[in-house]
């Protein structure tokens, strides 16, 4: 027996990168905009998708992939609105990856916008590119006004940052401006929206951003 050293130069993330690229190519070929909706548990991700479907269903064709560890509750909520939807159960995993999305993406070649709701979590999904065009990160004031500062990486890589439930800020003693400033200082290029979905605050601003993203499709 003797010992040898073998040089590898292997990218451990290469499989996810390859499948994300294939997903992106599929979406681009069919003119679909995919939005990875990320955020904490209970921050309002599913409700954002539901309300967006209701607001835009006469304007654009929407599809949705709903990621969850187990259970299909989010899928059932979204499918009720009459759009094409697919549940994705990750089993033991705390995030979606490009491989899981790859299994179902071909069903969505005929939509304009594909929402991919990630597992509720501000850490694990960050480094797994799904092949999306945009990342939307949603948090709510009830998670504490230091939640942005405590999770810099997910906010740094976001295209849109939504701070939801602002109507509850006073009750939970959260400083919304601090959250906005933390987000701005981490990611000056992101669109930041102060929102309260249940009170319809900031929702028009979100729809405006989405319409703008749709108009710039393929540019």
């Amino acid at each position, binding site marked *: *027996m003797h010992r040898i050293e073998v*040089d*590898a130069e292997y990218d451990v*993330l290469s499989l996810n990168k390859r499948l994300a690229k294939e997903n992106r190519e599929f979406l681009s070929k069919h003119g679909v905009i995919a939005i990875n909706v990320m955020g904490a548990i209970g921050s309002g991700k599913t409700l954002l998708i539901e309300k967006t479907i209701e607001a835009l269903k006469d304007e654009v064709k929407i599809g949705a992939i709903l990621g969850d560890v187990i259970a299909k509750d989010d899928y059932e909520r979204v499918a009720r609105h009459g759009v094409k939807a697919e549940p994705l159960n990750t089993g033991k995993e705390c995030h979606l990856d490009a491989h899981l999305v790859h299994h179902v993406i071909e069903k969505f070649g005929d939509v304009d916008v594909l929402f991919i709701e990630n597992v509720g979590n501000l*850490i694990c999904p960050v*480094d797994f590119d799904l092949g999306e065009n945009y990342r939307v990160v949603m948090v709510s004031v009830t998670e504490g006004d230091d939640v942005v500062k405590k999770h810099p990486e997910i906010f740094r890589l976001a295209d849109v940052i939504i701070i939801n439930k602002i109507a509850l800020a006073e009750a939970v003693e959260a400083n919304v401006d601090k959250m906005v400033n933390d987000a*701005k200082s981490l990611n000056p290029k992101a669109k930041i929206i102060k929102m309260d979905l249940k009170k319809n605050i900031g929702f028009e601003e979100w729809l405006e951003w989405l319409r703008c993203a749709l108009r710039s499709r393929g540019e």
Partner: protein
Amino acid sequence: MHELSYAQALLDEVLRLAEENDAKKIIRIHLKIGELLLINPEQLKFCFSAISKGTIAEDAELVIEFIKPKIICTECGREFDEVIGICDCGGIVSIEGGKDFLLKKIEMEVE
């Protein structure tokens, strides 16, 4: 625990290279990991040791070298150690690298 996904991808490649070289045992695995990749090295080691049980990579040591990202103001050129979006001068800060996960080298025993 997303470290399990990483550990599995790593183990697959390690065992593939081991077979290619007719290895009997894997001693040490050298990795380079970007500091901005959200990975907990202790959890990675734990996951790797759990899934490598019963393979020739069981008991292999993971040696991790961390790689710093380049965080630099696009206006004044000031460099930072921590992630920041805007420099004191008002310039946008660019962040490059720090997201890699590379298997660099494997030490193995062969006949």
